[in-house]
């Protein structure tokens, strides 16, 4: 069971991790500063497998990969948003942070709700309210990239053909 951390609309990459903390790319170090300005209680309070839920245009702003790396480094299981900014979406998949796009879930989950997800089926369950949402399931190859921790990691130990096999 995971706790939902709820964020608003157009949360930008500087709000995810301010540029001044981007001197490192070590996930755990970035994780200590993640959301530090918009949500100072996040980094100290987040538990492994918690989920981040946000309104539209999550991750807009710069193209830096530090933003999804910081969220993954904090142990977040998945980011559920009404929509994602283009480069964040790409970067998240390529560095191995699972994401789900689902406007209904973004609207139907409040901060602190208990949430479960089934990434393969695209299912999102709000256990607090007993509601269920359907996101577009991620293609199998995207899940494989996520599970390996990103595209570079995946290719270290697998052939690209295995992605589409």
């Amino acid at each position, binding site marked *: 069971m995971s706790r939902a951390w709820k964020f608003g609309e157009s949360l930008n990459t500087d709000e995810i991790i301010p540029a001044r903390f981007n001197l490192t790319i070590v996930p755990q170090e970035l994780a200590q500063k993640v959301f530090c300005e918009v949500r100072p209680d996040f980094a100290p309070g987040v538990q492994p497998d918690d989920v981040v839920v946000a309104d539209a*245009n999550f991750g*807009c702003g710069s*193209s830096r*990969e530090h933003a999804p790396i910081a969220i993954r480094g904090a142990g977040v299981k998945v980011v559920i948003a009404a929509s994602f*900014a*283009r480069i964040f*979406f*790409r*970067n998240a*998949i*390529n560095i191995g942070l699972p994401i789900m796009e689902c406007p209904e879930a973004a609207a139907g989950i409040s901060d602190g709700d208990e949430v479960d997800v089934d990434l393969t089926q695209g299912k999102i369950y709000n256990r607090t309210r007993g509601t269920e949402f359907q996101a*577009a399931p*991620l*293609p199998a*190859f*995207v899940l494989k990239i996520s599970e390996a921790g990103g*595209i*570079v990691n995946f*290719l*270290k130990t697998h052939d*690209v053909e295995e*992605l*589409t096999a």
Partner: protein
Amino acid sequence: MGTLVEEIFSRRLGRTVNAGEIVMVNVDAIMSHDNTTPLAIKAFSEIGKPIRDTSKIVIHFDHAYPAPNQLAAENQQKIVRFIQAQGIDNFYHRGVCHQVMIEEGYVKPGGIVIGADSHTVTYGALGCFSTGLGSSEIGAAWVTSKCWFKIPETILVRLEGNAPAGVYSKDVMLALAGQLGMDGGTYRSLEFAGSYIDALPAHARIVFSNMSVELGAKCGLIAPDQITLDYLASETKAQGPFDQFTAVNPRYERTITIDVSALQPMVACHPDVDQVKPLAEMIGLTIDQVYLGTCTNARYEDLEIAAGILKGRQVSRFTRTLITPASQTIYEKALAAGLIQIFLDAGCTVNAPGCGACIGRHGGILAPGERAFTTMNRNFIGRMGSAEAEIYLGSPAAAAATAIEGRIADPRPYLA
């Protein structure tokens, strides 16, 4: 079936592909340049696998070329060693990567090209899906020859009517930027159509695709037509037969229509591409440097327009005027046609083809408090050097008129 971007991917995969789907495809070319190749090499080395197909890799030296300092020289040396060690044939230092990609035949209608540069979107004007990616993905694509994409929704931009004299595709694109804003096309495919586009020569169409990333778009596409095919045959090394296709029963997220005949020359003001005003409102602002260059507006026809205005005239004594042809091929053609002599006679400085002053590395860096009028696509703070300098964007004609007067000037009185 569908929008142009859906058509391109449906053809590639042999099945109907719709916006929102995530697909994996083979790419036709993987582009990078002196600025972005080192990080791609790093990702590639981490993966530790061989290159799948060296013929797809295309590497350019253009961003800081010839090397303006030792650091750049050392970077380029490393890249050259990598190219030699890997046996990569497609290596160019013939000008701005995007122009050279088109000239050397890597861009074809229906093609899919990725590049480690945000203006990779440029090839959309010739019906090729192309987009910019981070260096790590480029390194991964060297190993796989593949890339995944989420098929974007499409905004149709209908440009109708004839442009009045003195209004060029750059002015029309700036007008659109002013209207749509810098995030107005985020994650979307922009599809440019309408009677203005139908009649527009290919070199001028390129401006729209090139600058679609300024509106946040993933790609900026124009349906390939006879004008596209003629351009590919006469101006590039691309080998046909070429695919011709259009959008079929497309579903657009929204449509924007602009009456081009009602437009006037435009300028994007410091410090954002969407701070667009009619040029008439900015006339008289003193300018320290005019820069006619970049992947947006330094093609032969752009130089021809500027030369037409500068012929027999002098640029203002305190306005450094830099001309940087987009490629060696363009440089040669301009030389043969006498355009270079016109620029030299007018007091301009002609630079080696490449990105030149565009990224503030060399070839025309600005001092604090200076103002530049350029044919570039971006005017971000600090782009050309000092963060206290200002950059204004306009057409090659406006740049030429501004160079003569030393102040932002209307090109129309200079057009015979």
